[in-house]
C-alpha cells in the first residue's frame, strides 16, 4: 500500500515536471502580456499576405516590402532603414527619403507607457518583443543617410539639421555620458560643410572646430572643408550577438573583412588619398552599457534563483512526501506535496524567464565611411574602384548646390542578402501581439505611400 502510494506520488511528480512548465509559460507570460487590440491577425495569415503584397514589386524591392508587411510596427524602423538605404543605392531618392522619414518619426517618438516596451522589461518576455528603434549608432546612421538625401534635394539647412541630429543620437546612450560622448565627429564635420555651402561660414567654422575637438580621427581633414566631397561606405556592418549563459548580454564586434585600396576616377584624374571620416564599428563597439542591461541581468538572476529554489523544493518535497507516505505521517506528506508544488512552479518560472538581449541589427550599414575631397574633381561620370572591384563602379548619389558638390557610394550592395547584398531580411515569425490596430494602419500606409509605382519611379 505504502509502496503503491510512493509510486503514485513519483509518477505524479514526473508528469508535473514535464507538463506544467509548458503550461505555466503561458500562465507566467499572460499576466505580463498586455492586451490585444482585437485586430491582431495570426502569423500564418500575415506571412501569406506579406508574400502576396510583395509580389508586384521590382526584384530588388520585393524582399524589403515582404519584411515591412510581415513585421509591421515591430520591425518597422529596421525594415524602413534597410529599404531606404537600398532605394538610395538604386537611385530612388524620393521613396528613400519617404522611408527614412517614416523611420525617423518612430525613432523620435517617446515610447512612454508603451505596452510592448513594458513587456520587454518584464521577466517572462524577451527584450526583442519591443518595437525596434536601434542602438545609438544605428539611429545616428539613419539621420546621416537622410542628411545625404537633403543635400541631393538642395536643402542644405535640413541636411545640417539631420547631421546634427545624427550627432545627438550618438550621445543618447546611458553610458555615453563621459568616455565616448559626442565622438562621432563625422556628423558635425558634415554639418559644418553644409553650413559653409549654405553661406553660413561662422556656423560652419564652429561646427568643424567642435568635430575636430571631439574626434581625433578627423583632425587631419581640411578646415574649412573642401567644397567637393566624395563619401564611400566601406566594409561590413558591426555584428550583434547575445553573450552570457542566457544570451542576456548584448555585445558588438567588427564584421569580417575590409575594403581597401579605394580610388576615385574622374576623367583624366585619379584620387586615392581616401581618409576615414567616420568609423561606424568603433561607435557601435564603444556604446558602453545600456539601462536595459541591468534589467536583463536581473532577469538572468531571477532565472538562476528560480531554478535553484525549484531544485531544492522538488528534492525536499519528494523526500518528505515519500517518507510521509511510508510512515503514515499525513502532515509530512502534506508538506512534501506543498514542496513539490513550489518546486514545479519555480521550475516553470525558470523555464519561462527570458533574459535574452535583442540582437536585431541593421546589417547593411558599413564598417566605416571614407572621404576624399578635391574641388577640382568633377563628380559627373565619376567612378571608383577598390581592392575587390577592378572595374569602375559609378557613384550612387551625386548632388550639387552652388559651389558645393557631394558624391556617395558603397562598396557592398545594400540589397537583400538573397540578392547578393548585405541586408539580412530574415524570415521572422510575425509578432502581432498588442499591435493589431497599429499594424493595420501601417500596412495601409505601405499600400498607399509605398505602392509599386512609387517605389519604381526615380
Amino acid at each position, binding site marked *: 500500500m505504502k509502496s503503491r502510494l510512493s509510486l503514485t506520488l513519483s509518477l505524479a511528480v514526473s508528469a508535473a515536471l514535464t507538463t506544467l512548465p509548458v503550461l505555466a509559460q503561458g500562465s507566467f507570460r499572460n499576466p505580463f502580456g498586455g492586451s490585444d487590440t482585437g485586430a491582431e491577425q495570426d502569423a500564418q495569415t500575415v506571412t501569406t499576405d506579406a508574400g502576396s503584397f510583395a509580389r508586384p514589386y521590382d526584384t530588388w524591392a520585393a524582399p524589403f516590402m515582404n519584411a515591412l508587411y510581415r513585421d509591421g510596427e515591430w520591425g518597422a524602423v529596421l525594415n524602413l532603414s534597410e529599404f531606404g538605404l537600398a532605394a538610395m543605392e538604386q537611385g530612388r531618392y524620393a521613396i528613400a527619403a519617404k522611408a527614412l522619414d517614416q523611420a525617423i518619426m518612430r525613432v*523620435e517618438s517617446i515610447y512612454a507607457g508603451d505596452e510592448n516596451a513594458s513587456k520587454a522589461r518584464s521577466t517572462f518576455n524577451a527584450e526583442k518583443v519591443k518595437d525596434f528603434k536601434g542602438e545609438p549608432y544605428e539611429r545616428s546612421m539613419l539621420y546621416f543617410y537622410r542628411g545625404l538625401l537633403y543635400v541631393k534635394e538642395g536643402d542644405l539647412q535640413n541636411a545640417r539639421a539631420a547631421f546634427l541630429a545624427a550627432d545627438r543620437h550618438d550621445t543618447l546612450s546611458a553610458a555615453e555620458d563621459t568616455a565616448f560622448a559626442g565622438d562621432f565627429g563625422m556628423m558635425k564635420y558634415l554639418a559644418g560643410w553644409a553650413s559653409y555651402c549654405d553661406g553660413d561660414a561662422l556656423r560652419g567654422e564652429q561646427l568643424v572646430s567642435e568635430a575636430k575637438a571631439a574626434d581625433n580621427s578627423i583632425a587631419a581633414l581640411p578646415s574649412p572643408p573642401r567644397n567637393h566631397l566624395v563619401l564611400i561606405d566601406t566594409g561590413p556592418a558591426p555584428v550583434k550577438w547575445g553573450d552570457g549563459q542566457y544570451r542576456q548580454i548584448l555585445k558588438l564586434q567588427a564584421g569580417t573583412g575590409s575594403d581597401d585600396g579605394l580610388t576615385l576616377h574622374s576623367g583624366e584624374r585619379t584620387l586615392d588619398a581616401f581618409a576615414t571620416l567616420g568609423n561606424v564599428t568603433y561607435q557601435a563597439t564603444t556604446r558602453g552599457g545600456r539601462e536595459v542591461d541591468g534589467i536583463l541581468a536581473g532577469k538572468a538572476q531571477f532565472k538562476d534563483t528560480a531554478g535553484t529554489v525549484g531544485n531544492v523544493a522538488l528534492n525536499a518535497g519528494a523526500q518528505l512526501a515519500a517518507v510521509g507516505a511510508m510512515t503514515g505521517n499525513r502532515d509530512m506528506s502534506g508538506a512534501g506535496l506543498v514542496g513539490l508544488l513550489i518546486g514545479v512552479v519555480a521550475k516553470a518560472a525558470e523555464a519561462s524567464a527570458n533574459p535574452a538581449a535583442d540582437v536585431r541589427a541593421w546589417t547593411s550599414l558599413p564598417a566605416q565611411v571614407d572621404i576624399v575631397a578635391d574641388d577640382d574633381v568633377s563628380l559627373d561620370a565619376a567612378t571608383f574602384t577598390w581592392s575587390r572591384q577592378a572595374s569602375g563602379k559609378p557613384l550612387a548619389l551625386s548632388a550639387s548646390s552652388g559651389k558645393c558638390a557631394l558624391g556617395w557610394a558603397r562598396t557592398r550592395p545594400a540589397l537583400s542578402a538573397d540578392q547578393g547584398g548585405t541586408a539580412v531580411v530574415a524570415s521572422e515569425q510575425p509578432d502581432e501581439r498588442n499591435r493589431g490596430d497599429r499594424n493595420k494602419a501601417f500596412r495601409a500606409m505601405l499600400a498607399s505611400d509605398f505602392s509599386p509605382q512609387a517605389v519604381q519611379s526615380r
Partner: protein
Amino acid sequence: MNVRKLAAVCFASMLAGCATQMPPNAGGVATISANPELAGPVQGVGIEGHDIIGMSDQMMRDMLASPRLGPAQGKSPRVIVDAQYFANDSTQPINRNIITDRLRVNLNRAAQGRMTFVGRQYAQAVEAERQLKREAVTDVGTTGMMRATLGADYRLGGRIASVDERSAKSGMIQRFTQITFEMFDLESSEIVWSGIYQFLRAAADDAVYR
C-alpha cells in the same frame, strides 16, 4: 506546521524575486511642457503641429499691432513673407515653408489691406506671363499691364534654433527650441519688427531604448 510556514515564506520570496531592479523612469515619462522661463528636466521633443499654429497666430497678432508695419501716409507697406531668409539652425529637420506659409496666409486674411503682400516666390511665374502678354502671345488679361512688378518694403527673416541636453542619471532628454521672426527694411536693412516663440520640452524614453 513549521514546514508549511517555511513553504509559504519560500513561495513569497520567489514571487518577490520576480521583481527586477528597474532604472529610474523605466516606463518612460510622458511628454510634459515646461515653462521655458524656469529650469526644466532634461529631455527633447521638437516642433509639432500645434507649435506651428500657436507661433504663427502669436506672430500674426504681434505684427498687426506693430505701427511700423501699418499704413503710413495713406500707403500700406509691401511685405514679403516667405522662407527664403528663414533659416533652420536646429537639430530637427523641418519644412520651414509650413511655418511661413501659415503666417503669410493668416496675416493676409487678418490684415485686410493694412499690408500689401508681395508673392516673390511666384516671380518666375509672373515674369513668364508678363513675357507672353508683351509678345502678344496672350491678351493683356482683365487688369491690364503694369510697368513693373511690385517692389517690397519689408521682408521676413528669422531662425529656428535649438539646444539639446540629456541626463544620463534620470534618462531624461530635453530640448529648448527658439524661433525668431524679424521683418527687415529692404532699403535700409533696419529691423522694424521682431518676435520670438520658444518652448521647452522634456521626456524620457522607455528604459529598453536607452
